[in-house]
Every structure is written in structure tokens, then in C-alpha cells.
């Protein structure tokens, strides 16, 4: 079922605001993993504002859904989402990456309320998600674990170790999500390390593969719904995205994996984000 109109508009507005907040946070921090934050933000917005069973008043609520940011370097994308949800004051974002700040490039669960795991080194999120899923089964809890990975991250063998085991244990309470922005630090994924046939690899590991436009709220929501409905196989959502999505000079450009810019450039980014979201609403 597609999103209703109110939800759609709320999510569109929220992702527009969060894109701008990511830009602000990068300016406060001096620099950051802005490209991957902007390619993932629509899915994170959808999860935190529509899909996940969470309560910011009770960040440790045992039955909450979990979000594991396996691509841990986009803390600069997740922290604005958590601050905006009220897990901690938005003012914290102004200290991002500063000495003694509670917020750093890769977020620490012991410092950031609402964060379900500390991540950073790549290829760790899917095994953590399997552990959460198996423990939920043993404790007869019905929460889901959403694991957001980068496509470049899927070079790591541990991703496939976990994929094999998730399939073996039929851990359908994990929803794997890949931000397929086709870029990594050293270049485009096709040039650095071939991933294709990417979807077939997941299928071969026993996954129900759902492909979606990662910047279309309705398609993303349908993908989540499809993942929830599949009870025989674990699901992976491969969302086709653009690195730096929403800002002209960053869009699809691997060079903006990590970047910094001044206030003037940031203003340009925000105008671009408005232009991009206006177009999206009118599409």
C-alpha cells in the first residue's frame, strides 16, 4: 500500500529539513561524510518517522526496533535524525567532531542516546544484526532490526559471512538495506571492485531481493512493506541512490564521499536542496 498523502508530505518535508541539517552539521564539524549521508537520508527519514517502533523518551526500551548503521562513517547523517527525533538536544550537533564532543565521525553508543550500536569499521553491521535477531527469537520479542550498509562495504567478507548465516537461520526479523550509490572513496564501485551481478549475489545467498529508487518515498515504503511480508526468506532492499543527492555539484560524484565547505557554499547547498525537493514534490 502506498503512503497516504499526509505521511508522504510529512516525510518529504522531513527529509528536506534533515538534508539541510546535515549540511549545517558538516559546516560545524569542519568536514564530514556528506555524500553517503545525503544518499541514505531518505531511507533513514522513512525508518525513523514512519516505520520503526521506537520511543525517543525510552531509548533503551527493550522491544523497540533496532537500526544498525553498518556504514558507520555517515554518523553525520544519522546524528541529525536522532537529534531531530529528540533523543538529544540539537545543539549537540554544533559540537560535531570537536574535542570532547559526544558526537564524532563514527558514533559511539555509550555517548549518543538512541544509537543502537557503535559502528565504524565496515562489514560489522550485518553480523550485529544477526545477533540481535537471534536474541529476539530466544527472548520471544518481535522487534525488527534494520541494517543499513553501503555498497562499497559489501566488498567485506564479513557481510557475506553474515548473509549466509541470516539465510541459514531464516532470520527474517532482519531487514538488510544497501545504499547502492555506486561510489566509494577511491572511485566508482565498478572501477574499484566489481559488485555486479549484485542482486544475484544476494539471491544466491538465499535472500529475497527488493530493488527500489532510494529517493522515492513511496518506492522505499513499498520495499519495506514487501520485506515485512516475506516470511520465508530474509530480505535485502537494494536502493539505487545518488551520492550527495540533492546538491548539484555533489550529486553522483564519488569525490564528495568526504568533504568540507564554508558557510557560503553551505548556503548554495541549501538552496539546491530546496530546488531539488521542490522538483521532487512536483514530479
Amino acid at each position: 500500500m502506498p503512503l497516504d498523502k499526509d505521511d508522504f508530505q510529512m516525510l518529504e518535508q522531513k527529509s528536506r529539513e534533515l538534508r539541510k541539517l546535515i549540511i549545517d552539521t558538516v559546516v560545524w564539524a569542519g568536514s564530514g561524510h556528506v555524500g553517503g549521508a545525503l544518499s541514505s537520508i531518505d531511507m533513514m527519514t522513512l525508518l525513523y518517522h514512519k516505520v520503526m517502533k521506537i520511543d525517543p523518551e525510552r531509548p533503551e526500551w527493550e522491544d523497540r526496533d533496532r537500526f544498525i548503521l553498518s556504514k558507520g562513517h555517515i554518523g553525520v547523517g544519522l546524528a541529525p535524525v536522532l537529534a531531530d527525533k529528540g533523543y538529544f538536544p540539537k545543539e549537540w550537533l554544533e559540537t560535531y567532531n570537536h574535542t570532547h564532543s559526544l558526537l564524532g565521525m563514527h558514533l559511539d553508543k555509550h555517548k549518543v542516546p538512541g544509537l543502537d550500536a557503535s559502528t565504524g569499521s565496515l562489514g560489522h553491521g550485518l553480523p550485529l544484526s544477526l545477533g540481535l535477531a537471534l536474541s529476539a527469537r530466544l527472548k520471544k520479542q518481535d522487534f525488527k532490526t534494520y541494517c543499513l550498509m553501503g555498497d562499497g562495504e559489501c566488498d567485506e567478507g564479513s557481510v557475506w559471512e553474515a548473509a549466509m548465516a541470516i539465510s541459514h537461520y531464516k532470520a527474517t526479523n532482519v531487514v538488510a538495506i544497501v545504499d547502492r550509490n555506486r561510489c566509494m572513496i577511491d572511485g566508482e564501485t565498478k572501477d574499484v571492485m566489481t559488485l555486479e551481478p549484485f542482486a544475484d549475489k544476494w539471491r544466491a545467498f538465499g535472500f529475497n531481493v527488493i530493488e527500489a529508487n532510494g529517493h522515492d518515498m513511496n518506492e522505499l515504503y513499498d520495499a519495506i512493506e514487501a520485506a515485512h511480508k516475506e516470511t520465508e526468506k530474509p530480505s535485502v532492499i537494494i536502493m539505487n541512490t545518488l551520492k550527495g543527492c540533492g546538491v548539484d555539484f555533489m550529486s553522483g560524484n564519488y569525490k564528495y564521499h568526504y568533504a568540507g565547505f564554508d558557510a557560503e557554499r553551505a548556503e548554495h547547498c541549501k538552496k539546491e536542496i530546496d530546488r531539488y525537493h521542490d522538483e521532487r514534490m512536483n514530479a
Partner: protein
Amino acid sequence: MGGLNYTMEDTAKLSTAELYGKTLVDLADQHPEVVGLTSDLAKSTKIGVLGEKYPERLINVGIAEQNLMGTAAGMALNGMVPFVSTFAVFTTMRALDQVHTDICYQNLNVKMIATHGGLSFGQAGTTHHCTEDISIMRSMANCKVIIPADGMETANAVQAAYETPGPIYIRINRGFDQQVYDTTEYDYEIGKAVELHEGTDLTLIACGSAVWSAREAAKVLMSTDGISVRVLNMHTIKPLDKEAVLKAVHETRRIITVEDHNIIGGLGSAVAEVMAESGKACAFKRLGVPDTFSIIGLHEDLMAHYGYDVNGIIAAVREVMGADFEEDDDWNDEI
């Protein structure tokens, strides 16, 4: 130490790892949050007995150690108490990034019971020897490091690990160990050394399989040479019992460490750090694998080869006792 009632007969019949498995099942009987994980080594590490009684509580992830440690961390994030077992070499090197980031950095309640430590899988060759783990794991913040001397002590250590929150690394051997204790009823406490033999001339500080050898050496030295050797079972490498080390420095002025590990970075280094920071002079020697990749052979033969079996320890004690420690200004004849 509720629930521990093993007898000398058990230790004669059961290998160290089997006693671990038995203790784990006892813990699982009492605590539903206890789970076991392994990577195709359920039989070899003896964690498999948990799965015989509680099939759903033993997770086997196949030969995939990174996933093993990450999955354990995920389970601990949701309040389970995972006991993870694979060989020491895979626990501390193959999966070290996960041990570091998922378990230790997040300070999760995961117990890593690593088997086939030191040279105890001697005939498997160097790829399966593990002489770096103490060094690696004691530099891991939040993590406690325990090397039990035998099966009885392993039972105590596993029980104590359950009772102590946070990541704990316990290294045991393959197969049977020489028996140091005939009961679990002694004063076992994580971080507290156990004095096994009184002495005033020199202190042997040992861990793991070297403990039995050190005690045997001390008995021989007393009867044949009249040398009074104190033996400390330093079962916990981290947190190290600094008080016991400093007491030995003050009271015996000569210390030899013995470990089934590279002499760099392990027990010997940990003791040396305490001594050096105390500012008190002490004759000192480290016994263990002399910074080399070890050769193939039976465990006991390898310990003899590298000079830390009973005879090797006796020779080292005689050498250190013969050193002219602080009697003159000549530093050349001191160890």
C-alpha cells in the same frame, strides 16, 4: 561458587575444555540468558555439550569467525550472555577487528573462551599455535584476560566470568592439562594471584600450563639445591595482581616469569611493567617462546625445546640465583 562440585575424579576423566563445557551447561541451567556460539568447532572446543542439552541456545555460524564475534556482540546488545568458543589463534587474530570494535569498545558482556592456546596444539603446526594472544588481548581496553592453570581453575574462571560483567578473554589448552588443583574450593578471585609454593629466595610467576611446571620445579629446587622458591599462579593477566608482584620484588628480589606465549607482550611484560614503575631493583628473567614462530611437536616437547618445562625452569632459577645481584658494581654478571 554455587553449582561447582567437580571432584578430582572428574579432572582425571575430563579434559580442561570438557570441564569448561560442563561448567557452561551448569550456568545455562541456572541462567536462561546464557548462550553459546562457535564457528564449526563445537566438538573441538567442547562447547557442543550446550547444544546437546539446549539446541536452540548454541549457535554455529560455520567457519566464519568475524560473523561469530559480531553475532555474539549483537546478542549481548540485547541482554544475552554469549560464551564464544573457537581456537585462540582465530579468536584473537582472525576476528580481532570484531573483538575490538563490536565487543570490547562497546564493553559488551561477551565471554570469549578460546581453546588450543599457546603451543598446546603443537602437532598442528605454527598456524594453529597461539603465542600472541595475551599480548593482544591485554592491550584491549575493557577486557579482562584470564589464563587458567588447569581444568579445575577453568571451571572457577568460567563461573567467575559469568559473575563479572563485561568482556572477558579466557585462554585454555587443547586436551588434558597437568593437574594443579584437585578441587575448585580454593580462594579463586579474578585479579588475585594464588601462592602455590612458599619461598624467600626467588619468585616464579607463571600462568596457564606453566604453573604446574613452576610448582614442580620449586619442589625439586628445595629438595636438591635448598633454594626456596615462591610460586605464584598469576591466572589473571589483566587486571594484574600488582600487589603480589611488588611483594615478590620486596621479599625475594629475584623474579622469573613463565608462560606458554611469546616472551614479548605477555605475562613477562606485564610483570616487568609493574616492576619498572615501582623503581625497585630486581633480578628478572622471562621464560616462554623466545620471539620465534614455533616448531611442530608435542606440547610437552615444545615446552622443553624452548626451555620452560620443569627442567628449563630449574636451569633458569639456578642461573638467576648464581647471578651476583647487587653485591658489587659489576653489572655484567647480572641477569
